[in-house]
């Protein structure tokens, strides 16, 4: 199994970083290669980064309610760049009702508030096919 390269980022203007910082460190400590892109990214920027970095997974954090908007944008871009097969995971303050809608838009996994470290790491491992 490859080590697994994960890009983590926030999109748009949402500045909440408690979760993304904590999860990034958990993933790093678990042996994944983590590229932290931080705040204020556009969907184009993270998709391009995924290609350039040849990352396996893109992890995005949302705490202000813009997750549906960006899921739609990401879907369009994934098709345009021909990377529909790559895995994108979301995490953050997301209403449970939106989880199925996000999955229908191609988001592989959605981590809701309170998800344990163990659950996140094992899910990422499964997504990597290990």
């Amino acid at each position, binding site marked *: 199994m490859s080590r697994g390269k994960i890009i983590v980022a926030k999109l748009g203007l949402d500045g909440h970083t408690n979760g993304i910082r904590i999860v990034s460190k958990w993933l790093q400590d678990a042996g994944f290669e983590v590229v932290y892109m931080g705040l*204020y990214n*556009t969907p184009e920027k993270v998709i391009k980064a995924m290609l350039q970095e040849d990352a396996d997974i893109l992890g995005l954090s949302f705490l202000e309610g813009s997750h549906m908007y960006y899921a739609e944008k990401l879907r369009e871009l994934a098709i345009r760049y021909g990377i529909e097969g790559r895995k994108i995971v979301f995490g953050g303050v997301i*209403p449970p009702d939106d989880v199925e809608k996000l999955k229908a838009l191609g988001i592989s996994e959605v981590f809701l508030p309170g998800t344990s470290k163990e659950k996140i790491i094992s899910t990422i491992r499964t997504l990597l096919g290990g």
Partner: protein
Amino acid sequence: MSEKPENIDFDAYIRGERPKNFKTASGIELKEFYTQDDVTDRREIPGTYPFTRGIHRDMYRGRFWTRRQQTGYGTPEESNKRMKAVLSAGQTGLNIDVDVVVKLGLDPDHPLVEGDIGLVGTSISTLEDMEKLFDGIPLDRVSTTLIVSPPASCVLMAMYVLLARKRGIPENGLIGTVMNDSFNQLVGPTREAEFPLFPLEGNIKIGIDVMEYCIKNIPRWTILNVNAYNMRETCLRAPEEAAFAMCIAKEYIRKLLDRGFHIDEFASKIAFFTDIGMDFLEEIAKIRAMRRIWAKMLKEEFKAEKERSMWFKTAIQTSGLALTAQQPLNNIVRATIQTLAAVLAGAQSIHTTSYDEAYALPTEEAQKLSIRIQQIIAYETNITKVVDPLGGSYVIEWLTDKFEEEIRKLMIEIEEQGGFIECFKRGWIDERIARGRHEYARRIEEKEEFIVGLNIFEDKEEKLPISISKVYSTEMQKERIDYVKNYKKNRDTSSVKMALDRLYTEAKEGSNIFVSVVNAIENRATLGEICETLRKAYDFELKIG
């Protein structure tokens, strides 16, 4: 609730339950009990220096705290409806939150902001928006807090002044607060959140310009609300929250003194916005210690003479970080306990965070319940009928002393490194936050700290029992974008340009820009245009996208 008997740990009943350790949330070791030997006999009376027991002798006997829930989402019209709804539920002050687009000083038609319009606060760009937001609200009878940092605080404050003028309300009739704290633009003082948006020195300078104008012209206005809450919610501990906030206030005091004001001209116009978490005794002690530290600092260090200058005033919000998405109804209990702590600590105003906020902005129903929590405490418990009811409790007095000591130690550490601004620039604050976050996560993961429903007493097959507010709507966002585009088309572009040129020149020269921001708005410049002009004057390019 349908556990089979074989799944129940009957041995636990024999063992019994007890705390995992005997430390407070910030790590202070508690003794078995406290006696008079643990406390200094101060014989302090409420309303007297150093105001540990409260800034007023009669406190809530004279007047309850202000019930001030944050409101704002979507368009200004939608927010206005919610503002009226909370007022009719018995809220006694307004607390206006703007969306992150405004907080960053941008307009809705900026290419990078579409998905964020109106989500976590109201969308505002023009004076017309401000008029719609405050439609039917008497500015001289309802006090309003504008939760916004520089540079946008300057624009919103200028709009507020213009709105008052239009309605014929003199500036000395306005009552309220502009948050205006440069270090909590978004969710806490991190460099990655702040640095891409606006130059820090310019940001602080604009904040001081607003303060200077308000000191001179709006006598009943609070010019700064030091945002300790957002710092704390980045997982800092209670003594750090208090020390950081005090050190930020010191920076502003020095800068206002540099502008030639006497300390007693403005100290009473500075207030704080603090957090109350779940550690009941510790949070109450923190607020009491902050009152004492502020009073002594103002009197001894800054030589204030007026008593009012020595009053530490605070708006309190119950912790959002403490809420769980699991078993969300439990959050009603958490918010109630925290609100009770805020009252026992002697808050000036309270926002009780709603039980559904681990998922989204609150529904109207949830917000109303938050107001009811405060009303039940105010009207039914009778704890408002005696001032500082916990004063003299051995443990509370001991913890207050302990907090004073801990906070002072941290303040000295910050001051010795050149003060808060220097510590922030150097990344020392970021390091503390990073440490706090990882430590917080570790404590929960390793069950060093229990959170009911999250890492103990979990319901495995839980169905969400509450309804959740949905703010996101492409129509609302499109409406806002179209509105601003049209506004920009239908105006005299030469007068806009002239007003923005004047602002640019004054910003370059370093004079107070407030009046020329007022002039720009009058000439129909938008919030985004004004902030962009200021960025240009400071040779700064937005680093987002």
